[in-house]
């Protein structure tokens, strides 16, 4: 499943996710106008349609959406505190704050340098060697050929696998929620997903949702939803074949 080809139909934008990213990066589309939650909904729907959990796509999607949220947060930050409601999750608050401060510091330092440059504009100095200076010969001590091989070997080393480290956000493992939901289903035949997600961060909610989709895919549960955005009920699968029923969708 190609995340970047995900078709979006949002208020501010209609088209593939890839194009949205391009427009945002080129600053031709104001991220403040983009409903990031809408993108998440579209992705989850698409995922559900496929009926299988594509972990690679999920990983890529989480990275892209996290980046979008961060960019958006940054753009929104100077505004009213009410807009901070867009930021969350609280777990990431500290990290986000640190990075925003870091970015501010970079901006501050850049402003200082710009001012400095202005003030230093009338200091001219020679960039190249002096016209009548002797030519310098750089001599190199004998080198080991092994160093050449080592340098190429290092270049040929596989880069670390797709890393979320640069986001420094913690993604709880899907397995954690799988276990939790299986345990829950051991005690009750049905539970209300929304009630279980209550109090979680958005990222935890997303991962928990992926876990539920995984349970459904493996036939352990059936999902029921009366209408889009209505509470999702998770039912332990019995004799009935597990299926996704969102009655409003077929209408």
């Amino acid at each position, binding site marked *: 499943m190609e995340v970047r080809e995900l078709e979006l139909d949002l208020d501010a934008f209609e088209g593939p996710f890839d194009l949205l990213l391009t427009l945002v*990066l080129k600053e031709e589309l104001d991220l403040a106008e983009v409903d990031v939650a809408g993108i998440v909904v579209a992705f989850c729907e698409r995922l559900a349609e496929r009926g299988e959990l594509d972990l690679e796509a999920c990983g890529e999607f989480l990275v892209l959406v996290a980046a979008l949220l*961060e*960019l958006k947060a*940054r753009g929104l930050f100077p505004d009213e*505190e009410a807009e*901070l*409601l867009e*930021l*969350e*999750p*609280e777990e990431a*608050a*500290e990290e*986000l*704050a*640190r*990075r*925003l*401060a*870091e*970015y*501010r*510091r*970079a*901006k*501050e*330092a*850049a402003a*200082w*340098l*710009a001012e*400095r*440059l202005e*003030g*230093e*504009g*009338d*200091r*001219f*100095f*020679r*960039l*190249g*060697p*002096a016209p*009548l*200076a*002797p030519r310098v010969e750089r001599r190199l001590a004998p080198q080991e050929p092994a160093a050449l091989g080592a340098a190429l070997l*290092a270049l040929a*080393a*596989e*880069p*670390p696998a797709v890393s979320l480290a*640069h986001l420094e956000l913690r993604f709880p493992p899907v397995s954690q929620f799988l276990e939790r939901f299986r345990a829950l289903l051991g005690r009750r035949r049905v539970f209300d997903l929304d009630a279980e997600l209550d*109090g979680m961060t958005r990222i935890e909610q997303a991962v928990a949702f992926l876990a539920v989709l995984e349970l459904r895919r493996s036939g352990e549960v059936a999902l029921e939803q009366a209408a889009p955005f209505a509470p999702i009920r998770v039912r332990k699968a019995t004799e009935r074949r597990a299926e996704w029923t969102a009655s409003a969708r077929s209408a």
Partner: protein
Amino acid sequence: MDGERPLRLITASPVDRLARTVEALLVVASQPLSAEELAEAADDDPERIETALRLLAERFAEGRSGIVLEHVAGGWAFRASREAAEACGRLFERPVERGLSGAALETVAIVAYLGPVSRPEIARIRGVAADSVVAGLVERGLIAEAGREEGLGGAVRYRTTPLFERVFGLESLSQLPRLDDVGEDAAEIRERLEAVAERRGA
């Protein structure tokens, strides 16, 4: 050599002769020279070099001479007097700093404060890809490669160059202002975020 000293004292005071040697070294050098480098080249002791430099700083002072001695980028170098800036501007381009964009300034600031620092780290802080900006700064000679991050396949890291210090008229990177006041901001931002998080959690 010891036997020569009295002779030298007659023809010219030794410091004056040393000062002439130092100005000769500075006029051919292609980068600022530290007192130690000057001492080594002049084959004299650093203290006497300092004395000679003080003498030259007076002689090559702004307003008194078209050649100005300045302490910059950890060493001593000649530059044109500010008085002659207009004339210099007519003859020489300023390829290094011409048209430095805001993005370039932010990036070079990050490298100056956090260097050695890799492109992914810069991108993380600025929130946008740093590739072309970094390449541009390398091209201008304001930053240079400084090894790779640890581990196999690590990203190339960058630091600022002596040219950076020269262009911005810094004696050394330690002259960059401390940004503590912004550090306080970080605490404030964190508090605000935590307050929001609490309200959401409730």
